[in-house]
């Protein structure tokens, strides 16, 4: 059991990139008779930065992020990131993040604007280590939104929006991360490389906005996870 990641370069230059992933199943089922491994988690958010238009000087931005001293990862965690509009008060750019030099204490984040217009973007991150001793107060909600049709980038309809409600309210707005998917194989075409941006997270839900970074029109759905406290 696994998945196939389809990854598209939205950059105007060739190069290299790997992929980090986190899979979540809201079940405590055992594996081969053994309890599922527990995890140590660190959700967080950086400060927004302003990006120039795709292809212009300033379309890349960088951050140095720390997990904080209380987490105490015993090995290098897997870190995934997702764009968000938190603390952004101008046009939100569809930034694409790259985690670089992940370590036990933090990581560097580089991001490139995939959008044809300038704007600001922020990022939520989630660091995950398979280990005991994680924060016992965290709760997880997760789900999918159905596929929608995206126009070719730069044409009307290259942005699509979903409104998502959590199964029950969190005590404070949780960390929310999203990734495009193929709606469990129900799309009538392969999923496009849509860039998801998490908008306006509240205790009750969020708005998922996504922009097609692809040169072809087509559908894409999204998966999401939310991690926070419920009391």
């Amino acid at each position: 059991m696994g998945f196939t990641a389809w990854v598209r370069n939205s950059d105007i230059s060739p190069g290299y990139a790997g992929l980090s992933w986190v899979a979540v199943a809201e079940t405590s089922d055992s594996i081969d008779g053994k309890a599922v491994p527990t995890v140590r988690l660190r959700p967080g958010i950086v400060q927004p930065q302003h990006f120039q238009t795709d292809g212009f000087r300033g379309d890349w931005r960088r951050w140095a992020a720390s997990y904080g001293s209380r987490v105490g990862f015993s090995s290098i965690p897997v870190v995934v990131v997702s764009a968000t509009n938190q603390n952004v008060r101008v046009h939100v750019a569809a930034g694409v993040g790259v985690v670089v030099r992940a370590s036990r204490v933090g990581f560097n984040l580089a991001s490139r604007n995939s959008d044809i217009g300038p704007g600001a973007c922020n990022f939520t991150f989630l660091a995950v280590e398979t280990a005991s001793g994680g924060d016992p107060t965290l709760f997880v909600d997760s789900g999918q939104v159905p596929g929608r049709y995206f126009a070719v980038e730069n044409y009307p309809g290259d942005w699509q929006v979903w409104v998502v409600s959590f199964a029950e309210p969190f005590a404070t707005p949780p960390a929310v991360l999203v990734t495009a998917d193929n709606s469990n194989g129900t799309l009538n075409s392969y999923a496009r490389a849509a860039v998801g941006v998490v908008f306006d997270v509240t205790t009750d839900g969020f708005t998922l906005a996504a922009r097609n970074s692809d040169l072809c029109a087509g559908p894409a759905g999204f998966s999401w996870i939310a991690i926070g406290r419920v009391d």
Partner: protein
Amino acid sequence: MASFVNQVTFGSGTVPGGGFSASGFYGDWQTFHIPFQPFMPSAAQGKIRVIASASGDGVPDSYHLAPTSSYR
């Protein structure tokens, strides 16, 4: 209802960098086949959510990219 974190199954990993062509050229898409085993229980089939984002580890700074991803 949200699930208590210790009652949720997590899998995670990083796959090493692959080469991409510039956007719009042959080779601008790459695929990564990633097994969950042994992390995800079979009972969770169809209910697993995957969050993925790019990693630049192992890639020289001047060559890393910002690819977007989807999965199936």
